[in-house]
């Protein structure tokens, strides 16, 4: 049984459709990431699951029961917000205890519960401070602790890392993932950052313009994208697309290699003109264009420097590049994946 399912959820704000018929089933204990560009409707969808917004159409089921119209506090959810939403006038202890107090948990039970959550997140020494005295990373842990004490059936996390600096973000990503694995609670995590999505998600739902484009494991999303949007949204640099018949042909920059590097299997060859190269240490990015198609098309290649000597590829040169046929993706004129070209 899935912990949460959404059936044909839509949400209109006046003329604007923020969420356009999203259906999604999240399994028990799963870490599901909602990934999409800003304004794609992912946060609105999360707020509908939380009960902070009311959907215009469709059903939300939590633990098999329809919860449409059930207020947030009765849904068994806990939420961590982008700027954490800590209560500035409470101490950290009171912040974490607040959800228990609203549930009228007897006082003697509150203290050990708060201590347990604080210990799990390593913030025992901060309990008597106030939010403004804490760093961004510490605030984020407090928000997680406050979510944890309620024993929720679901964690909803709304871009919880976006207020942290880049270095802290990497370690916080790791912490959240480990924390979720330890407590085993079903989690829905909203982000626009594909690195977070790929690194943390058991499965990813890619959302664009209020619609789910694809749901799958990070591997599936990356290697077997369902459409052109997913293909170009995930991956840095994004997947190369060249016009092909009425649709597009796509291939990942790291699969686009000098022909002599590919020894086995059937390949498709291209004549590639190098415009510029970027040396990034562990890899080299080559910008250039293909000829021989309808018109010159810009294509990026990502090369492992160890295998391709730096001086062998220079701007202005023509090279024979190739892609294994199994690594080519075809998209029809609507951008949908076509299995046969």
């Amino acid at each position: 049984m899935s912990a949460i399912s959404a059936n044909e959820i839509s949400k209109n704000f006046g003329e604007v459709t923020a969420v356009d018929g999203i259906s999604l089933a999240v399994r028990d204990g799963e870490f599901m990431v909602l990934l999409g560009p800003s304004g794609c409707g992912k946060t609105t969808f999360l707020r509908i699951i939380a009960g902070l917004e009311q959907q215009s159409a469709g059903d939300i089921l939590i633990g098999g029961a329809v919860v449409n119209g059930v207020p947030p506090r009765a849904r068994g959810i806990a939420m961590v917000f982008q700027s954490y939403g800590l209560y500035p006038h409470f101490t950290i202890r009171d912040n974490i205890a607040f959800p228990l107090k609203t549930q009228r948990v007897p006082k003697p039970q509150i203290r050990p519960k708060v201590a347990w959550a604080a210990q799990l997140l390593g913030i025992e020494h901060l309990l008597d401070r106030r939010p403004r005295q804490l760093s961004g990373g510490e605030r984020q842990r407090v928000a997680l602790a406050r979510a944890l004490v309620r024993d929720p059936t679901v964690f909803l996390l709304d871009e919880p890392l976006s207020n942290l600096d880049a270095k802290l973000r990497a370690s916080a990503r790791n912490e959240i993932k480990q924390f979720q694995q330890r407590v085993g609670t079903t989690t829905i995590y909203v982000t626009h950052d594909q690195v977070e999505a790929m690194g943390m998600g058991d499965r990813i739902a890619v959302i664009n313009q209020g619609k789910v484009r694809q749901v799958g494991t990070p591997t599936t999303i990356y290697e077997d994208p369902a459409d052109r949007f997913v293909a170009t949204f995930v991956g840095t640099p994004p997947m190369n697309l060249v016009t092909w018949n009425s649709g597009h042909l796509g291939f990942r920059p790291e699969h686009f290699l000098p022909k002599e590097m590919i020894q086995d299997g059937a390949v498709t060859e291209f004549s590639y003109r190098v415009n510029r190269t970027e040396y990034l240490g562990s890899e080299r990015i080559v910008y250039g264009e293909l000829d021989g198609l309808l018109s010159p098309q810009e294509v990026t290649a990502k090369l492992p420097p160890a295998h391709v000597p730096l001086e062998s590829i220079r701007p202005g040169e023509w090279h024979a590049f190739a892609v294994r046929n199994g690594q080519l993706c075809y998209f029809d004129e609507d951008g949908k994946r076509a299995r046969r070209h």
Partner: protein
Amino acid sequence: MVAIAEKIHGSRSRFQIVFDRPRVLGAAFLTPAILYILLLVGLPFLLAVYYALSAYTIYNPSYHFVGLRNFVEVVESDIFRRTLLNTFIFTIGSQILGLILGKFGALLLLRPFPGRKIVRALIILPWAVPIALATVAWEWMFDSLYSVINRTLIALGLMLRADAPNWLGEPGLAMLCVIIVNAWRFFPFAIVIFLAGITAVPQDVLDAATVDGAGFWRRNYQIIVPIIAPIVVVGLIFGTVFTFTDLSIVYLLTNGGPVNATQVLGNLGFQIGILSGDVAHGAAVSLFMFPVLFLLVIVMLRFIRRREI
């Protein structure tokens, strides 16, 4: 380098260079404000202290020093003690009423409804209308014969003509009337203060409280009110200081009557010092406001500092 620097200096007047110094410029900007306070606040205050310690009347303008005799005489008078109590009742009553109206007004105005912008603009009117005009209007509403309130209640059959209250004629009702008029004048200000405070509470905090299970009352009184308290307290200081020193509403509506039931310090000081010409006692009465306001401001400023977030 030296040559260039000299050239730049040479192209500007001495005057401009002097005003480039932060100390000079700062002093120049502050001078008007300091002069204003010294001449229009400081000087009259010292003059009042001086009058209060003398036997000065407009019929016998002598600066004969009498020490604290005026204060002792003032405190011993029943009217003054009644007035001091009235001033507190008037101030506290109208502030509480104004805050309650302001809080609920702000909550109502936060909800989207058709014509909200117009209502928001209109609600500020009591504050913008000259107090003399507004008080005259209220005076007619409370009039013993022509009271709109009474006539409406009688017409609706909710009250008998014989029971119609004489709003400004009965001591308790008269105090209620001046409090209502003052609260009516103060509440748009309270609404603005509450609106500013509530809209400044981060949406994430409100959403978190909702998800954490806080209902309407808990969200309001455990989350919103404590967060906006510093802003509200500042508004309350202003309201309290202005009300405690105010005499316009009382002067226009009841002139302290009936039999000093609505007499407040400002009006009493005006009656004794200006109308009766006993400047010394009038000054002594007015100076009783000072320690009260001074303490009040200190207490509230400490409160703000403690609650700073």
